[in-house]
């Protein structure tokens, strides 16, 4: 608690007033809880790897397990660093992210086994390497950014960085088209099968930069966006001249839809902006306006652009034989649903299903693979983990002391929630299928890197929120 020292008062000598010297709450209670949860999470992740080997190979290969456990052990390094640089940070974010990451590694390794990829090029080992890189990046962010308010100063730089990262894949020579979407940059020559030695999806990092920009911009602009306007149907609608920002974001996301042919990313950026403007202004009219703009644009795109139309057909009429057999049809979606149905309530068990039948079983469709082998029970556990992660983020935003921090906390956690909804909604046929990665789980370095940086920013925000002068009055 706080230690009180009496001040040799100058003017207040007559009163009983004392100055409180406020210090940190001494024992790192939160960090000890985090350590407990982290050991638990690491054990579950390692246990998943062991179960995969027992189920698929029938024997335990200690090399891979020690690699996996070593990578998950890196989160302990992060935990120790948090004891020094962010003592009051939220104790749940790091364990939950570690557990999700560990489950993802186990499932990717399991699909490697099924596809017979066991060398150093296997996706499972690459994912472990990327996890180590991503955790190192998160640690660097935590150490470099000691106070989130410095980010507010760089909001316009963040805007240019975000837009630049979005546009990067469109530059000839740098951009690569992989699986129909122009959202990658690659280094090195393109191989026969379209893969490149090192490829990266810069759009994943753009979502962080854009969240920083939206938060900084809305803090300054929200008065003009929320207080003026005319009332119509019981809601206050904004003036036409205040529509500029939402139009620009709408155009940008439509540009992603048309030129990069990526429905999911486009929905992600636009949804992020809508939620942040709603949180900043408290006006429902912005959400209605934005949603009708996006739905209008998407319907138009589904009529004009072939690939969007295909996605809609594959969603609405997935079990139609023609659409199932068509190139770019619903084969993948339906196979994923069959897999999850085969898993049933408790799953086939790790290493004992056939998740590799689904194309991209380790990246876009990792949720279907997990649903097959862990069943509905395991899938709901994963959803509960995401729910807890996002609710912690919202809680950090709610408890924030400054408007920028509040908006940033809400924006960063909402972007994870929306991404989970778009991916899992697509796989379970709630919404049209779009190619996005499941945060922390899917194979892919850029996604892992971006999500660990988001986790680091949330940790930093939660530390500054709690680390304020406090006074406790107990009667």
């Amino acid at each position, binding site marked *: 608690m706080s230690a009180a020292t009496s001040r040799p008062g100058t003017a207040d000598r007559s009163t009983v007033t004392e100055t*409180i010297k406020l210090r940190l709450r001494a024992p790192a209670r939160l960090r000890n809880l985090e350590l407990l949860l982290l050991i638990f999470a690491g054990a579950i992740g390692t246990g998943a790897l062991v179960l995969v080997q*027992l189920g698929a190979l029938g024997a335990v290969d200690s090399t891979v397990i020690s690699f996996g456990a070593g990578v998950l052990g890196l989160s302990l390094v992060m935990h120790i660093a948090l004891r020094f640089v962010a003592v009051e940070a939220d104790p749940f974010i790091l364990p939950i992210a570690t557990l999700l990451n560990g489950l993802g590694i186990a499932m990717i390794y399991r699909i490697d086994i099924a596809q017979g990829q066991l060398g150093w090029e296997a996706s499972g080992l690459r994912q472990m390497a990327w996890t180590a890189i991503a955790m190192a990046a998160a640690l660097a962010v935590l150490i470099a950014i000691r106070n989130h308010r410095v980010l507010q100063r760089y909001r316009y730089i963040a805007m240019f960085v975000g837009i630049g990262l979005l546009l990067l894949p469109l530059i000839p020579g740098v951009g690569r088209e992989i699986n129909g979407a122009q959202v990658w940059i690659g280094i090195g020559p393109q191989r026969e099968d379209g893969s490149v030695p090192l490829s990266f999806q810069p759009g994943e990092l753009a979502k962080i930069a854009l969240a920083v920009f939206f938060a900084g911009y809305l803090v300054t602009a929200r008065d003009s966006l929320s207080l003026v306007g005319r009332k119509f149907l019981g809601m206050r609608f904004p003036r036409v001249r205040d529509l500029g920002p939402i139009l620009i974001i709408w155009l940008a996301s439509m540009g992603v839809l048309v030129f990069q042919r990526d429905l999911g990313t486009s929905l992600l950026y636009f949804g992020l902006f809508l939620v942040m403007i709603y949180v900043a202004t408290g006006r429902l009219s912005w959400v209605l306006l934005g949603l009708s703009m996006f739905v209008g644009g998407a319907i138009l795109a589904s009529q004009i652009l072939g690939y969007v139309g295909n996605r809609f057909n594959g969603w609405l009429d997935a079990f139609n034989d023609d659409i199932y057999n068509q190139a770019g049809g619903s084969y993948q979606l339906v196979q994923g649903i069959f897999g999850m149905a085969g898993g049933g309530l408790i799953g086939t068990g790790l290493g004992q299903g056939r998740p590799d039948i689904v194309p991209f079983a380790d990246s876009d469709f990792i949720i279907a693979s997990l649903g097959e082998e862990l069943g509905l029970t395991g899938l709901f556990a994963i959803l509960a983990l995401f729910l807890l992660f996002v609710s912690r983020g919202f809680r950090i935003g709610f408890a924030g002391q400054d408007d920028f921090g509040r908006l940033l906390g809400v924006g960063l956690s909402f972007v994870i929630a929306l991404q989970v909804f778009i991916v899992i909604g697509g796989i379970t046929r709630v919404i049209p299928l779009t190619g996005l990665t499941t945060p922390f789980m899917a194979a892919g370095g850029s996604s892992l890197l971006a999500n660990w940086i988001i986790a680091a920013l949330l940790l930093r925000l939660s530390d500054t929120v709690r680390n304020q*002068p406090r006074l406790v009055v107990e009667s």
Partner: protein
Amino acid sequence: MSELTLLVLRLAFLLVLWGFIFLVVYSLRSDLFGQPVRRQAVATDAGAAPFAAASTPAPSVAPVQRPSSPVSSLPDNTRPAATASSARRLVITSGAKEGLELPLSNLPLTIGRSAESGLVIRDDYTSTHHARLMILNDAWVIQDLDSTNGTFLDGRRVVVPTQVPLNTPIKIGTTSFELRR
């Protein structure tokens, strides 16, 4: 490895996974159900009785508000407003920690029973997130966060965010405090 062992292991894995989730939720319980109320062992002295000061002008006589304006101020505008530069500290004038003071920065200060509040007041009358002191247009403003038992500025219940003059008591539960130079 027999089928049975694998079945047991796979059920155990799901149980452990859910065990982790329940451990997290258990650690979060104060977030879900609010901070536990601590019963007072004995009633404190008469001066700290709840609503002793608040009962003088009845709370039902709400101050005349201008609903159009987001910030209201007290009817008598004689006392100087507490601005970011003039108010330096928050002094507790009655209640359990009478006489203690808290230096004010220019950041908002949250008040409530929750451990995350800047000023934590734990008594039977304070809500988890009770009120917030913040700077609006260079003046300190108190905002009631829909608390159950209300926030009283100079004896009047705070309904809309209200400007706080210097040396004016704000009462929350059994605690009163003032902003001073």
